[in-house]
């Protein structure tokens, strides 16, 4: 596994952006952490020597005072730095998740929806749950590694002293150098072994995580959509689905458990193997120090110091090796983060919109299929919508109506053909400006658990008057006035615990109010009345018809009565535009539209 310079640069840059002092402070904190045991070793050696040599009590006590003061100083400085690092770390972590959010809400829709985008998002979420926040791990492991490095460095200084003292005591230079050289070589070998072992371990581990992707999605689904979902609660009870769910969910849980246990096994043997190597080397070195002291080549106090240093040396090495292995293990998770942030956006147009309010839309031989599917969802669809046209799109389930709208909204791009607005390919316009032209009520619309006015006004400022007008138009004025904070009330409970719970019909009305508030020149409604009762439905049709008289409107509905309001009807079947014309024309034509119409009208004409 090679060192990923790119990733290192990026993470360093992220550190630097939050604060240029984060890394130095982290290094300094860990330096102090590494140095603390050496302060203790140094002065306790002096104490031991003092006592052994029979120096006066006061002199020995002075050494003890130094020891205590030294430790205090090192610790206090460490706390100050630690405080700074912790604060900055928290900022760094949230800054990174903020960037993910920012990217997710602004990126190209088709990219977000693509396999790559969804996979990265799912993997990041799973990673955060099972592995932890990659940046938190990064700081933790970098700290471990640094403190290990500093510890090793300090220990080497002591070990050098050891050699010097031995030489000074008249031990043979060649023999001493051989001993120490041999020791260092052994230690290096130990490190190599540990690192190799660590890499193999990490590869295994990441592969295990990879295999779990499938289970994770399923697990999340059951948690969210079955156990957390009160609507599923009805199915479970009436249909007696407990056994089915428990069996399926049990299987997933068992796989997860096996995975976790497997990792535990790997981890256990990995760590045990490492510790055998290190303890062995450390013990040999200790023995060597003791023998030297025994032979009076070094002082008794220094045997404390050097044996301590040797122990620290190996503790440091273990930390470095573990830190490196952990950093490597963490790298794929970090890489995902940057990969997501750097997902390449398709070229977006920059052209300004025409100044006039007149909007003319045309589909020209548009072909489209969803990524990953073979069959065309739309085949050679061409039509024009003039300013002020009221268009209905009808057709059986799966005929391509909603897809047409999604293309018009630039959520997807046609594979062949163009969609033009006032003669210019819609892809050429600046997308945010373009979206301002469109008010849409989605079939699966979504209201957020924010304040009611935020749901309606989006990022813009609150226009009080327009807001109440839109609510009044949808017959929601009274209901909103009765809420605990009027338009400032939160909806649902996820964001604010005292939020208002609204019914499906009310939600649908708010979704339409939102579109009315936006007041864009083109108004699109995809099945806006599915959850409305007949009276509300009729009111909706009449309201929108009068409110939006001048505007261009596109309407999708399975209730064909809505077509009567429209100037022109487009009939789709299997992705092909089959018929086009007014309600009367199409009935006379006696084709698909007439079939649809009659299927529904027969029940009402019997009167």
């Amino acid at each position, binding site marked *: 596994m090679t060192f990923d310079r790119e990733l290192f640069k990026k993470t360093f840059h992220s550190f630097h952006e939050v604060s240029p002092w984060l890394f130095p402070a982290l290094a300094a904190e860990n330096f102090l952490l590494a140095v603390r045991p050496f302060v203790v070793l140094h002065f306790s050696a002096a*104490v*031991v020597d003092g006592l052994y040599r029979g120096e006066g*009590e006061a002199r020995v006590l002075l050494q003890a005072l130094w020891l205590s003061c030294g*430790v*205090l100083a090192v610790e206090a400085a460490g*706390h*100050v730095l630690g405080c700074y690092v*912790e604060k900055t770390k*928290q900022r760094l972590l949230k800054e990174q*998740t903020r960037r993910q959010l920012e990217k997710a*809400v602004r990126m190209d829709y088709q990219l977000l*929806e693509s396999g790559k985008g969804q996979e990265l998002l799912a993997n990041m979420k799973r990673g955060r749950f099972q592995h932890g926040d990659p940046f938190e791990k990064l700081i933790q492991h970098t700290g471990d590694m640094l403190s290990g490095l500093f510890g090793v460095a300090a220990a080497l200084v002591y070990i050098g002293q050891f050699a010097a003292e031995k030489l000074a005591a008249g031990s043979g230079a060649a023999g001493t150098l051989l001993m120490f050289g041999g020791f260092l070589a052994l230690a290096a070998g130990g490190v190599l072994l540990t690192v190799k072992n660590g890499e193999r371990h990490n590869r295994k581990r990441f592969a295990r995580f990879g295999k779990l992707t499938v289970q994770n*999605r399923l697990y999340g689904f059951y948690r969210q959509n079955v156990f957390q979902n009160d609507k599923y*609660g009805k199915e479970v*009870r*009436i249909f007696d*689905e407990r*056994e089915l769910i428990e069996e399926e969910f049990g299987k997933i849980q068992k796989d997860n458990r096996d995975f*976790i246990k497997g990792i535990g*096994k790997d*981890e*256990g043997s990995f*760590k*045990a193997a490492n510790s055998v190597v290190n*303890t062995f080397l450390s013990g040999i070195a*200790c023995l060597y120090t*003791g*023998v030297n002291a*025994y032979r009076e080549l070094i002082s*008794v106090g220094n045997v404390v110091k050097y044996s301590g240093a040797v122990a620290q040396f190996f503790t440091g090495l273990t930390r470095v090796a573990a830190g490196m292995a952990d950093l490597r293990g963490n790298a794929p998770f970090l890489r995902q983060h940057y990969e997501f942030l750097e997902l390449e956006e398709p070229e977006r147009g920059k052209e300004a919109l025409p100044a006039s309010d007149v909007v003319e839309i045309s589909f020209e031989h548009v072909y489209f299929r969803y990524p990953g599917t073979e069959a065309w969802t739309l085949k050679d669809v061409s039509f024009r919508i003039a300013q002020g046209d009221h268009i209905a799109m009808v*057709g*059986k*389930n799966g005929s391509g109506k909603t897809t047409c709208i999604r293309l018009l909204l630039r*959520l997807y791009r046609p594979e062949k053909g163009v969609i033009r607005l006032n003669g210019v390919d819609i892809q050429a316009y600046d997308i945010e400006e373009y*979206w301002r032209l469109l008010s*849409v009520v989605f*079939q699966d619309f*979504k209201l*957020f658990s924010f304040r009611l006015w935020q749901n309606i006004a989006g*990022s813009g400022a609150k226009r009080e008057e327009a807001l109440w007008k839109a609510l009044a138009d949808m017959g929601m004025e009274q209901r909103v006035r009765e809420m605990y904070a009027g338009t400032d009330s939160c909806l649902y*409970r*996820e*964001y604010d615990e005292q939020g208002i719970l609204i*019914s499906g019909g009310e939600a649908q009305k708010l979704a339409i109010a939102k579109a009315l508030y936006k007041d864009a020149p083109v108004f699109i409604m995809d099945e806006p009345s*599915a959850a409305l*009762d*007949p*009276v509300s*439905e009729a009111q909706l049709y009449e309201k929108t018809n009068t409110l939006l008289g001048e505007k261009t409107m596109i309407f999708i509905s*399975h*209730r064909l009565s*809505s*077509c*009567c309001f429209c100037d022109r009807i487009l009939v789709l079947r299997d992705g092909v535009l089959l018929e086009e014309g007014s309600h009367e024309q199409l009935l*006379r034509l006696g084709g698909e539209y007439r079939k649809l119409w009659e*299927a*529904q009208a*027969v*029940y009402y*004409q019997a009167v």
Partner: protein
Amino acid sequence: MTGRLPGFAPSERGSGIKYQLFQVWTGFGNKMNRKINFILQTIWNDNRKLLVLSAAQLPLQVLLPWLQIFLTRTLVMGIERQDSLYRYVAGIGSIFLLQMGVNSLKEWVTATAEWENKTLVYSLSAPMDEKTLTTAYANVEGAAGQRIRQRALNAVYAFGQSVVLRSVSFLVNLCGLLFYGLTIGRCDPAILAVVTVTTGGGYLAAVLLRRCEQRQKETLVDCDRKMNYLENEGQSLQAAREIRLYDMAGLFSGLYRSSMERRKRSTDRIAHVRALVCSGESLLSFARNFVTYYYLIHLAVTGRILVGDLVLMTGMAAGLSVWMRGLIGDAGELKRLGLYLDDYFAWLDLGEAWQTAKKRAEEISHEEINAEAIGDGAAGKTAAACAPSLTFEHVGFCYEGAQEDTLRDITLTVRAGEKLAIVGRNGAGKTTLVKLLCGLYRPGRGRILLDGEDITGYSDEAYFARLAVVFQDIQLLPVSIAENVSSHIRGKTDRQRVAWSLEQAGIGEKVRSLPAGEDTCLQRAAREDAVELSGGEQQKTMLAKALYKGGDVLILDEPTAALDPIAENDIYRKYNEMTQGVTSFFISHRLASTSFCDRIILLEDGRIAEQGTHEELLAKQGRYWEMFNVQSRYYTEGGRDDF
């Protein structure tokens, strides 16, 4: 607290000795004991290996740091006592071999236990999930119940992830404390006293820190919840469309930033207090270090201890304060974790609105009927003879916490085999009526009778067995179409009947066209190999599911909302066939559906405002007539010229 604990019977499962040990270990009083016993039972049944590994950690973790100190002592002492070189080397060598063994064993045990520990969350969530699937529906749907369950789930994660690790750490610290304390105390009680006093001061500091953290906790939890919500919604595709078309990206990042700011203020405060508290502790440890050395140096100078012992004692004194500090931290943390238990058990012990499981006998006899029906496959409607009658007697209902009644005084008799349509405006009480009819809620006032017998007399299972329902919302599992339709595991799925149901629901052809047919999995959101059915196709699958079940009361709540006119018409045309031999309820906003029902009920403000056949109600020229006109106007006017 004497609530029901699912799957917990201590006398049956627990062994005597283990039990005694738990009793000693806990000592929290009876209430606490019951909970802790339950947790330990769960661990014992599911994660036995974890317990063994945890116990094994105790001696290893206590011994290891001591061995290092003891090694240093031996190094000094051997020279001091002028042992023979052979003895010296043998002494050090044996310690170091011991160290090697203990260390590698400890590493192995700790790492394995750490991962084993992660399975505990699954074990603890199992009883919770079981409760979710079996408790009264009001507990699942009601806001109060949902809050309790959410808290319990948080508790499972917070508690489950750290309780065992913390307990082990607590015990290790306790053993270390005893071992070191006794050793030091035997040598010089004064040192023990110094260490205890200075570390005790640290306890106050720790309390201070904990209090600060507690104060900030609410803010932190609130911020994290909000930020999580924003992160999740920001990634959802359904939300993505609204965000883009309604320029909500700025709103999202604005809200996120403001939560970030609030969170930062909290975490900053905690960091500041922590630095202060830690510095205070450092000061105390300064005093401890100096005083300990002072004593020991004095003892060594006066020749009462050897220098080697001084090394051992200073090391152990430092170690003792580490154990103590750890113990204080762990005790606080365990106490905090203990609070989660209340949240956890609040869900497990949540009261049931009613007791079930009375009508055992009827349940069984009905199962026999059902089994026969299933055995007949395509001709599954043999239960014809037993279509029941249903009676509502002055039924009223008010949701928990609601100001007004949703249903008021509904009185209604549905004849055996009758086809009833229920219509009404949004909020008139249709859905609530369905829930009562389904036995998901019990009426607040009045009674519902099935064949003249109060349905509260039935066990839930026995009553549910008689119903076939298509609910408004489409809910499908990431399993095969066949299993979705049968609602049962593969082994209990009647394939013939599945095919028949799919055919009846008008989706047979579509399913056959799929590469794996009925074995095709659903829900692409959950699995790669699944197909995504369109909204209409999903709705038909839900219908097939109800047909497969085939109870003798059929309830369809808005079953055609997502269907195109042709598919809708198909359902209407088949409705007569579907309702052979059952008593049926059809709830719809599409009034066309009422023409093939025997009787129509119009609900308004929780009351039956009108009832009668389609013709009768039209003749009456009341609310129904109004509604029908509103809806039919365009069909008749628009179509008139051409017919």
